[in-house]
């Protein structure tokens, strides 16, 4: 009843925010709108009986990753997107990869819509909830323990990589 409606509300917010993200000129606005989109998604997760994921989404995605994006945007003092074309022209009509990409996106969506409505196991959800944090934790540290450890290595690598890639070149290159 109410939860059905909530689905549509959250869904609309997510889609709308995403569209705005890719439509905005100002990158800061894009980031903030994306945070809004993540919030809507989080709501959807709760509707799907996955509260833990919802919370994680907010904490990690919206809280950490997006903040990182914000940092970088501000650090680089990213200007408004430079435009060598007329802004008022609709994206669909712009030349080059842009138009191509948009056309492809429309194609993809058509494809997926058609595929997904073909039937086959897309019925309603069952009753009863299986998720609790304990259940997740148990499964994570027994069945998926190897993957878990691998991700820690992944994070380590990313950390090292980020540090190396972003560091300033030693002064030896700056000689007159």
């Amino acid at each position: 009843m109410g939860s059905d409606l909530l689905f549509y509300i959250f869904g609309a917010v997510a889609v709308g925010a995403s569209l705005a993200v890719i439509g905005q000129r100002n990158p800061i606005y894009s980031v903030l709108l994306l945070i809004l989109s993540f919030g809507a998604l989080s709501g959807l997760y709760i509707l799907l009986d996955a509260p833990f994921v919802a919370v994680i989404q907010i904490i990690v995605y919206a809280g950490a990753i997006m903040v990182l994006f914000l940092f970088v945007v501000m650090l680089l003092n990213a200007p408004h997107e430079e435009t060598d074309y007329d802004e008022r022209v609709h994206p669909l009509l712009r030349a080059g990869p842009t138009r191509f990409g948009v056309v492809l996106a429309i194609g993809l969506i058509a494809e997926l819509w058609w595929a997904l409505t073909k039937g086959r196991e897309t019925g309603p959800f069952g009753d009863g909830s299986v998720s609790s944090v304990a259940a997740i934790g148990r499964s994570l540290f027994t069945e998926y323990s190897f993957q878990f450890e691998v991700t820690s290595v992944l994070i380590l690598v990313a950390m090292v990589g980020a540090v190396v890639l972003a560091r300033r070149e030693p002064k030896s290159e700056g000689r007159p």
Partner: protein
Amino acid sequence: MSGLVPTPALSHYLILSAVLFTIGAAGVFVRRNIITVLLSIEIMLNAVNLTFVAVGRYRGTVDGQIITFFVMTVAAAEAAVGLAIVIGLFRHKESLNPDSFTALKW
């Protein structure tokens, strides 16, 4: 109020995530700011997450949610490294337009 709209079934969720995914994909092409491109990629990853959780719920297992952990981890790592690269590129060329990096041209 309950009979106004159809109860969301799995297909609804899947369609929603498909829409989100394509929005993200379109964003990669449309935007001329590398950072925004990275944002679009995050949108795509989120759509995938939604799919996993929905299907996991449908099948009644907790595996879908566990997979989202990993997806999120990867997304975080990728965002970090990607932004580091962007910073490096920006230092080199003072521009965030992907079209200005044409060193690979023949």
